[in-house]
């Protein structure tokens, strides 16, 4: 280290120290940089899986601080029952809500812009009831609350409508469910964020890989937790046949959303490098696709 570098660095340290207040949040996040990149927990209780996975990542307080407004974004787009595995498991969502409130979150909101009629989806997915029971707000999406945001790094899309509550939240936790989807191959975390988009989302389906990455450059969830409790293997994204559903009893959590999605693909038996949107996401620097380069902690919980 030469003198110049030394001066710059110590000035930076001083500055950081001086601004301890506003920077505390960053500092705590940096401190909480977990020892693992991905936590993969398998076990019979979805709630226990969620708890374990989050504790492996350094605990919920690494993400949620006292007074935060948290948005938990599950997939509850379809008028299907939990057994159909078209929506995120209600227990998984409920446990996350509980943890956030325990960590002192001021408010936890759970919502999705649904594909079928909203009331039906909220009800039959079981999520509305489970999350409200834990103390979350589960409001319906109001068309008037979408805001147009520009996408500076967008290659296909230069702007789109985003849900105000999602972009204004202090913390966004993405809770997708792992399932088949014929356009993207799979629907996981990156795709799940379509649920906070307004406008005619059908327009996103062609040149999907690029567009979904464009969207993800603007919204950056602090934590992605993939629900693979039940996995819809065929006829996604809404299914309807119980024989298309496989019980996997697994939860995958991580900060790097590309890594979480890539791991989900592996779980599903697909090669992440063959999934266009993941390749595109890695190219654009959103995260790491090669699971072998990651520190993965796998835990199996007994019954």
């Amino acid at each position: 280290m030469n003198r110049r570098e030394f001066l710059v660095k110590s000035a930076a340290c001083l500055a950081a120290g001086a601004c301890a207040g506003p920077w505390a949040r960053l500092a705590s996040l940096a401190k909480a940089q977990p020892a693992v990149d991905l936590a993969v927990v398998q076990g019979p209780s979805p709630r226990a899986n969620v708890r374990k996975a989050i504790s492996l990542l350094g605990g919920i307080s690494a993400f949620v601080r006292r007074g935060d407004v948290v948005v938990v974004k599950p997939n509850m787009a379809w008028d299907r029952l939990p057994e159909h595995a078209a929506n995120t498991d209600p227990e998984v969502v409920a446990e996350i809500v509980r943890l956030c409130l325990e960590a002192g979150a001021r408010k936890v909101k759970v919502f999705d812009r649904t594909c079928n009629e909203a009331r039906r989806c909220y009800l039959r997915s079981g999520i509305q009831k489970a999350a409200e029971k834990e103390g979350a707000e589960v409001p319906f999406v109001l068309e008037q609350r979408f805001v147009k945001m520009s996408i500076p790094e967008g290659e296909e899309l230069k702007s789109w409508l985003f849900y105000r509550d999602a972009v204004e939240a202090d913390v966004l936790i993405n809770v997708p469910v792992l399932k088949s989807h014929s356009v993207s191959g799979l629907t996981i975390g990156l795709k799940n964020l379509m649920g906070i988009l307004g406008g005619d989302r059908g327009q996103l389906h062609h040149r999907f890989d690029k567009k979904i990455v464009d969207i993800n450059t603007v919204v950056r969830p602090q934590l992605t937790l993939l629900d693979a409790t039940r996995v819809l293997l065929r006829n996604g994204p809404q299914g309807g046949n119980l024989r298309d559903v496989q019980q996997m009893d697994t939860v995958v959590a991580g900060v790097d959303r590309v890594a979480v999605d890539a791991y989900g693909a592996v779980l599903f038996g697909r090669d992440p490098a063959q999934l266009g949107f993941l390749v595109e996401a890695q190219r654009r620097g959103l995260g790491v696709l090669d699971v072998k380069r990651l520190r993965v902690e796998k835990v199996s919980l007994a019954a």
Partner: protein
Amino acid sequence: MDLFLRGSPLVAVATILATRSWVTHVFLGLVVLALTVPLGRVFCGWVCPLGSTLDVVHKISLRKRKELKKPSPTRWRWVKFAILVGILVGAALGTQMLWPFDPIVILTRTADVALYPLFTIAVSSLLAVMVRVPFLEGAAYRAYSFLHAAWFPLQQPSFRLVELFFVLFVVILALEKASSRFWCRNLCPLGALLGFFSQFRLLHRQVDESCTACGLCRARCRMNAVEDDYVTTSAVECIACGECVSVCAPRATHYAFRKPARSGTVDLDRRRFMGATVASLATVGLLGIGFADRGRRGSVIRPPGALPEADFLDRCVRCQECVKVCSSTGGCLQPSLWESGLIGLWTPVAKPREGYCEYNCNLCGQVCPTGAIQRLPLEVKQRTKMGLAFFDKSRCIPWYRGEDCLVCEEHCPVPDKAIRFDQRMVRRPDGSEGLVKLPYVVEELCIGCGICATKCPVVGQGGIFLTNANEQRWIDSQFSSQ
């Protein structure tokens, strides 16, 4: 509203006549009719929601001018009987024509597609303005979310023909200017039907000797049923509303089960009776000749559980109950314009580009007051074919442009997917080549729900559309209707 519809005697009589079958749905209507024989037109005076609405309107519009008016002429009374005869003759011939005239249907229709939406729009707009005011913002959003969650449609539905329904309704209200209960006195076929039976009523208006002949009862009678001697009352027209009892200062008036000296009869002479019959016959005949071209007929997609077309047209009273309930879920149903001919005007048709039939919904069959749409158990409804989807390869994105899309496939609710795809190398318009997922419809699986057409992102006419090919209609005996 639903209860009123099922309790409308005219709906009961006309559907039973038109379908020549016992329709359990409208049983209540027959009870009301039977009650008319002892009690007279109590229904008109105390129950009919349109009548009550008219009374309110009358009160509001007359608040200022309290003076005694000369009773208006009775010379139009026969019109309602003529309309009734027309409807019944039509029904006897198997053509149901009551839908433009039944008061309960008129009110239900207007409330469902015009008044209620007007109300929700008004409240929503008010809240939308409040949101702009900084210190009201939070409260407004809270009210908004609450109303949407509990009560309001999540998305403001839109209906065809609203303006027409609304105008017709306003005209009926405006006729109050001419005289009170103008509609009931002169036009209402339900009133005519009840009036006919109430000739034989047992409950009558009585006037005793303390009458001072002040004339207030005659002037105030909504129906102009009291005659110049202030004693004689038309048994046909009197709706037993009790106004005469309450305005009578010496308390000379009351109601009792005793026959008075004289009472009126139905104002329909033989000439007018014949006229109405002939007009009705001609209408039925013309409706039968009415032309609906094949192109348009193919787009008449009926709700799941609809009876075969001829029976459906006889039963459907065009109340728009199904249209309204559908707007809160898939939102495919709309009142028909001309696609099913004049005879099918205002009947519900699915418009797949505007909305779709929600896979887990069978509400329309539940609200239909006449069984025109049968009440299907959900598993049956999910297998019932309303129509068939076809790709328009010159508009579907993968087919004409060689790019992946598959929004339709994503939304197709059939568990095994009625839309599938082949992955093939195609040459795109710009000359490049690539692997593209080309969708097609599996005819055996498609139930014609139309969500593919609703969600297709192609602007304007979609890349996939529906016809009523393959449609399945239910007949009454396949299900017990209750």
